[in-house]
């Protein structure tokens, strides 16, 4: 168990540090802006540093087990709840994602001109702490607990700093997400009760279920609860309507962290908990996932094309891309789930970047209306460059992580005859996202400026990206490029883990590597780092 190992304690620190810094900021409304920034850099930066350090120490041979395990009593031992932390090949990339997007959000937010900045930063820090905890939890109870902990600041931030229409959006989002969270909680409790091992620990549940699978009906029912519960949280069609509205009015920081990381919670729950533990449930609901995911891709894709408001468009596009991740999970194979994981990480980085850049655009144009902008690239070429790159990433251009995610999911779909046909409609989605993405870019940055905007452009008020905006943007772009050029930093560890979790498809273990990196497939398999 290694309760006293430093690396395990680091895991705990990465959760507590942001929360503690947040508490300090909460009490310290009298801090000067500079000391507030210094404090929050520490809070936002530490989780990523710990994440990178742990990534370096990660032992990939422990597949099926957890690295850096830490198990602390909480007083609820009698019903089997421990604060049980650890990372495996699936949670490690998401842990890093949370740290990275968290730091970028923090860097951007601490320079924003939000009213009551200390409260704003504190809420973001609470969110970040909850996120780190979610992905580091082995205990299913705490997995849920930390998610809810991260969710509440989102509501508050939308309510307090949101744009027009925030009252309605905040309450709609709250009700929708509570419904989703409670359904998934019911599913998790059902899993706990049905297993009867008196433990919320994922490892023990897994051990029990590997020796003794639940009956098919029970699996189907529990999987339904988890699928729709998590599905609502990930804006699965037709439970998506909270997302675009919520993101459209959310303050930038909240939108970045929520769309980028928190939303991945549901997918993570599906691929880490629901699908491996309830294989026949997953099989039963397979057609549902496919059709609803196609609804995300095609229908929401078309809706996205019709958007005239930049933020609404981004909100819908983030809903749309979730469809690919669902398809990947529906494949129920190492390749498909691995692709979904890659997709989640890359999408998290790209959508956070896009939300941030859209606010940068707003600060220069004073509008989100796509039809009343134009020609911004002449005054802000760097912003244009970043925005084009982020759009390309989200479309799935090779070189960015999203490409590998989508590509791997398509490969996984094409592998079996039953799912082959899905590739065609799913590929249409890429065309759709290219259409709206490129159109947005051309509307904002190129062509003739519209009259009202022209005055602003010529008045010299419009500046290019400031250093404080460049820094987080570079961080996120860097992450996208890294996963795009060298996806093995994620896929290697994930493969080993998934091969254990999805044993029915063991033959595919090597497939993902040969597909993703044909040139290196023959190279002797070495342990990364």
């Amino acid at each position: 168990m290694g309760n006293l190992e430093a690396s395990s304690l680091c895991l705990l620190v990465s959760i507590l540090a942001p929360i503690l810094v947040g508490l300090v900021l909460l009490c310290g409304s009298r801090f000067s802006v500079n000391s507030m920034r210094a404090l929050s850099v520490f809070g936002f930066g530490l989780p990523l540093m710990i994440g990178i350090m742990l990534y370096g120490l990660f032992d990939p041979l422990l597949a099926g087990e957890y690295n850096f395990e830490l198990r602390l009593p909480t007083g609820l031992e009698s019903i089997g709840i421990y604060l049980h932390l650890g990372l495996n090949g699936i949670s490690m990339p998401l842990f890093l994602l949370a740290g990275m997007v968290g730091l970028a959000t923090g860097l951007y937010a601490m320079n924003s001109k939000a009213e009551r900045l200390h409260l704003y930063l504190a809420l973001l820090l609470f969110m970040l702490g909850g996120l780190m905890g979610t992905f580091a939890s082995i205990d299913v109870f705490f997995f849920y607990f930390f998610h809810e902990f991260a969710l509440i600041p989102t509501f508050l931030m939308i309510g307090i700093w949101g744009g027009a229409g925030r009252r309605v959006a905040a309450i709609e989002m709250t009700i929708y997400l509570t419904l989703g969270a409670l359904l998934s909680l019911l599913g998790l409790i059902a899993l706990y009760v049905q297993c009867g091992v008196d433990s919320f620990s994922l490892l023990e549940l897994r051990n029990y279920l590997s020796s003794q699978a639940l009956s098919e009906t029970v699996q189907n029912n529990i999987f339904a609860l988890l699928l729709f519960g998590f599905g609502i949280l990930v804006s699965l069609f037709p439970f998506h309507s909270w997302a675009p509205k919520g993101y459209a009015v959310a303050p930038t920081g909240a939108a970045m962290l929520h769309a980028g990381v928190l939303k991945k919670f549901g997918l993570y729950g599906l691929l880490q908990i629901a699908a491996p533990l309830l294989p026949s449930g997953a099989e039963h609901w397979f057609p549902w996932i496919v059709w609803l995911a196609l609804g995300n891709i095609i229908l929401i894709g078309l809706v996205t094309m019709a958007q005239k408001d930049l933020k609404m468009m981004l909100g819908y596009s983030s809903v749309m891309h979730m469809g690919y991740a669902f398809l990947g999970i529906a494949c129920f194979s190492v390749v498909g789930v691995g692709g979904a994981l890659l997709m989640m990480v890359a999408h998290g980085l790209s959508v956070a970047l896009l939300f941030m850049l859209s606010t940068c655009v707003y600060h220069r144009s004073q509008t989100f209306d796509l039809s009343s902008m134009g020609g911004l690239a002449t005054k802000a070429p760097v912003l244009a460059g970043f925005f084009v790159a982020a759009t390309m990433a989200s479309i799935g251009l090779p070189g960015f992580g999203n490409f590998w995610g989508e590509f791997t999911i398509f490969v996984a779909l094409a592998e079996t005859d039953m799912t082959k046909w899905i590739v065609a409609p799913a590929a249409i989605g890429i065309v759709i996202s290219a259409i709206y993405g490129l159109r947005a870019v051309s509307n904002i940055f190129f062509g003739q400026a519209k009259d009202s905007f022209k005055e602003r452009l010529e008045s010299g008020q419009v500046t290019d990206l400031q250093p404080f905006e460049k820094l987080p943007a570079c961080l996120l772009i860097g992450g996208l490029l890294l996963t795009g050029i060298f996806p093995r930093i994620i896929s290697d560890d994930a493969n080993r883990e998934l091969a254990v979790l999805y044993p029915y498809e063991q033959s595919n273990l090597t497939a993902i590597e040969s597909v993703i990196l044909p040139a290196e497939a023959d190279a002797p398999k070495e342990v990364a780092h």
Partner: protein
Amino acid sequence: MNELLIEFLGGFTKTNQWSAILPEIMLGVLALALLGAEMALPKNKQTLIPRLAIWGQVIVLLFVIACIGWCNVGESEYFSGLIIQNDMTQIMRAFFVVSSIVVCYLGQIYLSKQSLAKTEFYALVLIIAAAMMLLVQSANFVMLFVALETVTVAFYVLVAYSRTSQFSLESGLKYLILGALSSGILLFGIVLLYGIAGSPELMGSSRDSLKYIELANFITLNTNNLIGVDNMIVKIGALLVVAGICFKIGAVPFQIWVPDVYQGAPTPVTAYLAVASKAAGFIVLIQLLHGPFIGLKEFLVPVLSVIAAATILFGNVAAVTQRNVKRLMGLSGIAHAGYLIVGVIASLYVPWAVYAVIFYLVTYLLASFAVFGVMSLAADANDANQELDHYENFARKRPFLSCVLVSGLGSLAGIPPLGGFIGKLFLFVAAFQAGLYGLLGISVLGVVISIYYYFDWIRECYFSAPTSAEVEDASGDETLGDRILLGALVAATVVIGILPVALPIIR
């Protein structure tokens, strides 16, 4: 004559059973002492009375807690079976003393804004607390009825306490009529059960059939033997008793008095009704279902399930459109009663669910008192008129109070890391283990609906745009005592949410 008296008193001192209910006696004496003090103290010293009431109760509370520590002896019977004490009743005694302390404190705030008689309020609150403590310990229907009537009669007075307010009088009248009716129903049920269990030709009949144990024996022995009228009488009797209790906890279809009475009654009394009276009802319900009515499980569970489902849905749906916060708390309290009934049903299959119910009651106590405390402080002289609109921009006017309000409402809505979440979690786990899937689904639906009105309130406090004409309301600043009390309630809610073991109920 003297010898007789000495022998009589000697009997008490020998067995010394009175010491078992010393806390109740202390509360009763304290209540009388307050009335005496009012007569004895000069006018300018009258402010000592609430302090005397509160600190006196703190001593009683310490005594009760010490009792929990000492007398961990399982179950013990007193007064030839009128009273049975066990772990659960010991916890509940502390629960009632805590709630009456808070109610006395809130009463002090309330009475300072009104020109009403003051001392009687505290005396009545203390008597109710003592009676409720006896109520949950009673193991005999006579004891049950007497204790319950003491509670109810004192509440008749307290609800109508604000004699100058027509709302208070109206609610007092409503509570009086419906309360009397429900007592009548309860008594009728008791009489039916007493009669049938006392008829000598039936198996297991008893001459002392008011006792829970005797009645339990009779019913379990005869569950399958009784036919025709006898069977009907047992079932009707049990139903009437349960109906009488359902009135106290505000379960559908006996909930109709709740919104009106909650609105009209002075806010501290509303809080007392919402928390302590309801809790007492639940404990009695648990004791009856596990005691005399255990043999009627198959019959009562469907009835209670329907009641629970209807209660959850009614409470939540009715609360959605409510703009008066006192009515809102009443209706949302109905919904909480529904969740608790689910827990009570679960306890018939999963024994530990009893503790889940008590845990929930404690989190409900902390959160409700936090909210009612804020309401007392925020209210103006017209106590019945507390609308959601008054809370617009509350966060800017009273930042501390709105923090307390948010944590209270959040806990009631069941949001982690607050205590209410753990309470709901335990209830859900218990219900799952008991296999009550339908009720679970309805509970979840109810919780989702409840998010709407709880967050609406929070939204009113925090999300409103500040108007330029906003004047800082400095006159109503809370005192240090208010801050300590409310802060303690919030702190307890958070601590229980993060470390549920801090509340030594679930083991």
